[in-house]
């Protein structure tokens, strides 16, 4: 327990201390929110889908979370290369608790980052209909963050340097984001898209955010939450397996 706590605390401290990173990782979601939100707003409205900012904001929260969660997991590569990982790996504590502490720490940070995106989106004109659901919303955000932080841990355990990093951004995070329904409604999609969207954990996350913030869901909240929980369990298991195999 103490191990999990101290590793969690380390992630939090590192996050709080790097203000530039906090601001930097807000820039991209804000850019998406403003350019797409205002750019496509009138088209969306004319298509009879209502206000695009309201629709888009939950998706952009998802974006903030997935990027920051995967990156915090991938940070293991830095720890590997700069030696700190050795310090934790030779300590008489189980690798599972090391992995869990890190992953939960990363997920906490990503959840906070998602909350920041939510705040910014309020400034951009987002009006959640249900402030009442703020607690379940935070739970959903944390689940999404946990899924992707564990995924990042898995990737970080398998890679040995940052050379593959660009590959991961372009072939994993970007597709996961774009194919999640963060930017478009999931109704009337082509058959293949429909399948792909359902395989993407983020789809359920964004859908849950929408359900809790603006009262509209595609899969239903119960479905969203159980799928997220399932993904979280699977990825934490996979992540801790690959982390237990790390050799330096």
């Amino acid at each position, binding site marked *: 327990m*103490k*191990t999990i706590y*101290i590793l969690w605390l*380390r992630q939090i*401290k*590192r996050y709080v*201390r*790097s203000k*530039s*990173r906090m601001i930097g990782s807000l820039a991209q979601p804000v850019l998406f929110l403003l350019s797409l939100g205002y750019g496509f707003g009138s088209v969306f409205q004319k298509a009879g889908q209502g206000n695009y900012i309201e629709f888009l904001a939950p998706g952009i929260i998802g974006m903030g979370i997935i990027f920051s969660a995967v990156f915090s997991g991938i940070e293991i590569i*830095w720890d590997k*290369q*700069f*030696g*700190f990982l*050795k*310090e*934790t*790996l*030779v*300590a*008489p*504590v*189980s690798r599972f608790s090391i992995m869990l502490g890190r992953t939960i720490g990363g997920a906490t940070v990503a959840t906070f980052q998602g909350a920041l995106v939510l705040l910014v989106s309020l400034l951009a004109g987002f009006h959640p209909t249900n402030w009442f659901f703020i607690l379940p919303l935070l739970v959903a955000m944390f689940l999404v963050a946990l899924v992707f932080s564990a995924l990042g841990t898995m990737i970080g355990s398998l890679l*040995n*340097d*940052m050379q593959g990093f660009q590959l991961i951004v372009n072939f994993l995070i970007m597709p996961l984001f774009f194919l999640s329904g963060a930017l478009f409604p999931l109704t009337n999609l082509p058959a293949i898209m429909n399948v792909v969207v359902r395989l993407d954990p983020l789809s359920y996350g964004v859908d849950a955010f929408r359900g809790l913030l603006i009262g509209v869901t595609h899969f239903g909240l119960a479905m969203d939450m159980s799928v997220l929980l399932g993904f979280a369990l699977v990825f934490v298991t996979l992540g801790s397996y690959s982390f237990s195999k790390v*050799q*330096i």
Partner: protein
Amino acid sequence: MNIIEVKNLVKKFGDFTAVDDVSFDVGKGEIFAFLGPNGAGKSTTIKMLTTLLSPTSGEIKMNGYDPEKNSHEARRSFGIVFQDPSLDDELTAYENMEFHGVLYDVPKKVRRERIQELLEFVELWDRKNSLVKEFSGGMKRRLEIARGLLHHPKILFLDEPTIGLDPQTRNHMWNYLLELNKKEGITVFFTTHYMEEAEKVAQRIAVIDHGKIIETGTTEELLSRTNTTSLEEAFLSLTGKVIREEEAGSIDRLRTARKMWRR
């Protein structure tokens, strides 16, 4: 009684044999120097002893435990100061110590006392709340040594601990270690390139080159076997005078990359 036992240890990376059929023992409470030129297989051996690498074949017993099968028990037995930095730059000196203390389950009261004692010892107490990234190389090294001593292990590994330290600090550190060795019977296993250091403190020395151990014994034994008058000469006569090249790792490239990434 032997606290470290190594039999026919082999580690291969692809075609390259880094450690080639190495066997040696270290007695309990002994100060043991593990010497060899760059790339001789010292660090690889230490990594296998300290559970960071799996051997290709061979047998290791650390305090009676196999690092491979009983890694948890083996890890309880030792502490290590690594050759290359292993501090968290984004944490303060105190936080790095605290983190280590918690991982090694040092009770809170002892932990607090010892952290203060050790930080004062390496003269970093007044910088305890500074981030490690603001430290000079020597300060980082001192902090790593203080951290390695925090949990009073049965076996202490020091992989080139005195690199980048001035003679004062080096002296200071060895006095502390000798004291600890006498008082608590801690076994010290260290590597170094400073032969006079090994000559001064080591009770027994093993010389390794090209992954094989070529001599083991006390300084006197090595001198008489090689017909030399100093350990430095003995070392050179055993390992030759050719300068070894170590592979420049991807670390340097990464250092640059990280700087860009962080900003």
